[in-house]
């Protein structure tokens, strides 16, 4: 990583206050809610709720940063003398660093805090729910997406790596869509995505393609294929930003 790329990475990670704030508020709110439920349930209370683990809300940071960086930081970085090429490499480095940090944080949260809530007898986990769906009737069940997607089935390391690769793809897709929104081809892309979803979901053979794609990048039984698919797609999608930022007016 050269000097300018590293400088831009640091600036991006430092200057995403809104994503930090929103993610922090949502995460703390959900964590408090689940902690309160854990106490209530441990004390013999009752609930009938299935909720995402608070840790999954950390993903918001990556998504919001991927919106904020091309929208606000590009101009500010060039106003400090940064170059377009540096922004291109610095931004992907920022997304990779943030994805890595969030993946690590959610993985640790899942194994430590979700585990604590479940082991203390307060809340029920995804595994117990799958074995006995009737638990839903009078329990508070927390599900972390890394469990739902099957990434925890191969242990903590793969849970981290598979989530990391998926978050890179997610952030790159959001970043690219945001970067092109002020151009006609951005609107066309939005329309094409909407048309694909609108057409593919109701028609069974086409829907199968969507399911195949989602399985490829999330539920894939082969971790290496899932990781490789996410990374290859990320590189391909991010490359589209090169001509976009090369022409972007400052």
């Amino acid at each position, binding site marked *: 990583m050269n*000097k*300018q790329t*590293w*400088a*831009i990475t*640091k*600036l991006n990670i*430092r*200057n995403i206050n809104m994503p930090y704030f929103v993610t922090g508020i949502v995460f703390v709110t959900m964590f408090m809610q689940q902690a309160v439920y854990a106490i209530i349930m441990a004390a013999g209370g009752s609930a009938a709720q299935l909720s995402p683990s608070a840790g999954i809300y950390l993903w918001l940071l990556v998504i919001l940063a991927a919106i904020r960086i091309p929208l606000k*930081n590009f*101009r*500010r*970085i*060039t*106003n*400090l*003398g*940064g*170059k*377009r090429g*540096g922004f291109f490499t610095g931004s992907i480095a920022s997304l990779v660093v943030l994805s890595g940090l969030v993946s690590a944080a959610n993985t640790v949260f899942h194994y430590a805090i979700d585990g604590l809530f479940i082991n203390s007898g307060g809340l029920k986990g995804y595994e117990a729910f799958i074995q006995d769906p009737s638990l839903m009737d009078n329990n508070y069940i927390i599900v972390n997406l890394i469990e739902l997607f099957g990434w925890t089935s191969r242990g903590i390391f793969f849970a981290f790596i598979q989530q990391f690769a998926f978050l890179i793809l997610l952030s790159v897709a959001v970043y690219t869509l945001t970067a092109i929104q002020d151009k006609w081809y951005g609107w066309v892309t939005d329309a094409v995505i909407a048309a694909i979803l609108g057409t593919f979901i109701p028609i069974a053979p086409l829907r199968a393609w969507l399911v195949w794609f989602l399985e490829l990048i999330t539920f894939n039984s082969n971790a290496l294929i899932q990781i490789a698919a996410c990374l290859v797609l990320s590189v391909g999608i991010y490359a589209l930003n090169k*001509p976009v930022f*090369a*022409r*972007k*007016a*400052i």
Partner: protein
Amino acid sequence: MMIEFKNVSKKYGDTNAIDGISLQIPESGIYCLLGRNGAGKTTLMKLLAGHIAATDGDIKIGGKRVSPAQMPDGVNYIESGSAQFNMKLSALIDAAAELQNDFDRDFAREMAKRFELDTNKKYKQLSFGMKTMLTAIITLANNSEIILLDEPVLGFDAIMREQFNTLLLESYHAHPRVIIVSTHLIDEIAKVTEQLIIINKGKILLQTGILDIDERAYTLSGHTSAVTPLLDGLNCIGKTTAGSVMAAHIYGDRITPPDGVSIEPMSLQDFFIKIVGGESK
């Protein structure tokens, strides 16, 4: 480093911000870019920095084409009043030093100190003038071969402007290069600039040395009947009449006026007003 604009145009919708400009800047120096609001000064600088694309024509620096896809490395331009991260000034200067090659961090800190900028303050805590100053510091502290300063003294008081002009000269003498300064404060910049480029309605009206204007821009005043015959063959860029008295503003070779007609040098400001068409009666 040779800068060359060849038949360059830039359109925003139907508006010609730059209209077929051809311009050459062959050597180092402090160049003043003068023009009214909306004349095309900022657009010209943005084109040269590769921040925006020309609609037509070629821009070259040292023979290499300039465009947003080929932003020149040797040009440093930051738009006046541009958005900055809300960080401490010391952190912004450090960030600029990491982002830019050839950034003189010590010079930037020295300038900040001399202009009494509190580097512990965050950007949003600064006054308008101080924000402009920070932009000027970050631009000028770079030792690039071409520095573009867009309205660098906007919001400055008279003392700050004087200090800035001194620093501009110090910076130039420490690192001779092309420095292009756009401003409205014409007579003040004349103390430090060597060359003048006047732009109006997207076209270059004049590119010349300040000394040339001192020598060739003058006003003939006297009775209308005495002044009018003298104007044949002279490049009269404006006339002011008050009753029977006329003041004719000339840009060209000096003449020796007859008795009853006085000749006075024209201020740069008057010259600018006359040449861009601000004639008064």
